[in-house]
């Protein structure tokens, strides 16, 4: 790979890159604008105060109204769509074309007859686009982080599992994975449009299935914590609410009712003997959880690209 192959690889996808990168930048700028609007309502301070049980002041109620009005507005929806969809669109459109379009249009005949090493050709075509896709994924992911911090007042995106998977470096890794799968499907089918359709389905199933597995792993890692105020912290992944037994066991409401039935007299309050608790994955585990998922996604991407290269080595150029 050198400057010429990088320039040419980007030039071959100039239309997609320019349009979609511009949309991604627009999404990031809109995210910053929306954040400034949300932060400007002053609701964050009110929300913190209300989390401690303080009564909302009239000013707080007014700030809250303004905050939720912005949050449910069309600009926010547009921003979220841009931040989420654009990097995947770029990944799929460029990914399937790297090999699929070359074979389909017959340009692989020229390129492969000039390049003594297909590894060199593949690297020259792949790496510049991978860098662009990763950069767009990271830009939108970090903008998503910032947006998430403003949309959920009082949360630190690096210590919060809210919006997990659709923001931050995790989103960038998912986009890179989608790109790698698109390259593989393009190499396998050797045609751009069928690869686009099949690639989209495979990516959807791959990321969906991966999220399902990740969700189960996270659920198995949930721990019970005492929650005196029963405050639901959006930074945590909360799976259940119940009680914490002295031996550290989490007891659900149903179990507690079986062990300590509610008094038949409605005037007698039900006083369960154990403190209220939640079963959660704390948001503070975000760096570990996201690091693990990024590692798995990048390993998957590497595997897909290795397979794609194996196909390229054996492929007929059409």
């Amino acid at each position: 790979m050198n400057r010429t192959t990088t320039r040419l690889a980007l030039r071959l996808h100039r239309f997609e890159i320019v349009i979609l990168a511009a949309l991604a930048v627009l999404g990031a700028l809109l995210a910053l604008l929306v954040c400034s609007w949300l932060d400007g309502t002053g609701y964050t301070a009110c929300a913190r105060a209300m989390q401690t049980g303080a009564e909302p002041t009239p000013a707080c109620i007014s700030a809250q109204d303004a905050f939720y009005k912005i949050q449910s507005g069309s600009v926010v929806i547009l921003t979220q769509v841009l931040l989420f969809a654009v990097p995947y669109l770029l990944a799929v459109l460029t990914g399937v074309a790297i090999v699929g379009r070359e074979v389909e249009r017959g340009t692989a005949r020229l390129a492969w007859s000039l390049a003594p090493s297909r590894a060199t050709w593949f690297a020259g075509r792949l790496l510049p686009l991978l860098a662009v896709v990763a950069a767009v994924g990271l830009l939108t992911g970090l903008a998503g982080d910032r947006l998430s911090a403003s949309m959920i007042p009082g949360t630190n995106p690096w210590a919060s599992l809210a919006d997990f998977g659709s923001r931050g470096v995790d989103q960038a890794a998912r986009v890179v994975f989608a790109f790698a799968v698109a390259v593989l499907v393009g190499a396998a089918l050797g045609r751009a449009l069928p690869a686009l359709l099949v690639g989209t389905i495979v990516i959807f199933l791959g990321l969906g299935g991966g999220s399902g597995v990740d969700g189960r792993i996270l659920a198995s890692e949930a721990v019970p914590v005492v929650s005196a105020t029963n405050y639901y912290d959006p930074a945590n992944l909360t799976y259940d609410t119940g009680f914490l037994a002295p031996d550290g066991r989490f007891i659900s409401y149903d179990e507690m009712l079986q062990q300590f039935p509610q008094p038949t007299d409605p005037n007698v309050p039900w006083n369960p003997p154990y403190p209220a608790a939640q079963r959660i994955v704390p948001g503070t585990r975000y760096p570990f959880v996201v690091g693990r998922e990024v590692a798995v996604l990048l390993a998957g991407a590497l595997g897909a690209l290795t397979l794609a290269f194996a196909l390229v080595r054996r492929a007929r150029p059409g």
Partner: protein
Amino acid sequence: MDETTALVAHGVGKRYRRGRPWALRDVDFSVPRGSITALVGPNGAGKSTLIKGCIGFERPTAGQLVVDGIGPWRDRGGAVRRVGYVPQAASLYRELTIDDHLAMAVAYRPKFDRPHAEARLRELDIPLAVRADELSGGQQAQVGLAIALGTRAPVLLLDEPLASLDPLARREFLHVLVTVVRAEGSTALLSSHVITDIEQACDRLLVLGGGRKLLDLSIAEACATHRVVDDDAALAGEEVVGRFPGPAGEALALVVGASGPGRSATLEEVVLGHLAAGRLAARAAGLAVSARSTGAAA
């Protein structure tokens, strides 16, 4: 393979899938260094398969190909370095300019002779700054040839590059090819349907039909050793190669031999006679195969 041959095939066979007919079968030939060999045959004769095999794009199912001393499938990189390839359809990137194509060639092949390629394009008034899709088909073919020539490869493989060109563009293309090959002593294998083009440019003829080699000799020899007879009564004792219709629909027979009844065959008639023979042989082989499979089924 010795120093005088650039390209050799030993019993080359190619079948794309088990149970499918052979695209190439038992093909043997050798192309002398410095020659321009015409590869002729009907559609589906295996011309493109053979050329792709020479650059390592297809793996022979049987036999062996050697290009400038290299087995293309065993050492594809080595074969690619020794070959300048002009594919069937112009395979240029429509988004890129001609200048970009030359830059790409230099990037992939550091020894690519860019000034040489540029000079060829300048001679033909093909601008470097335009995108490939703004050029005519003939100009695109010329760009493909200029890139292949710029590789300075000892072997040029041209897979029907003339098919979609008008007569003037074909003439210009062949002029450039012949001039360069003669000047540099490289070797070319040119696949084409157009016999007049072959007569102008080539010195050897390799005819394929039904995946088999039908004829392999110099063009001068091909014309000198064949005659055309239009009278069946005069065919007694002659070695008839094949029968084909003449320009007015008359029945002609191609026979082997420099002297005897009839007249000397033109190159086109030599090719037509051998292709007709090849078609008959392929039909007979097909009938034999179907008879065998019917027998087996019974």
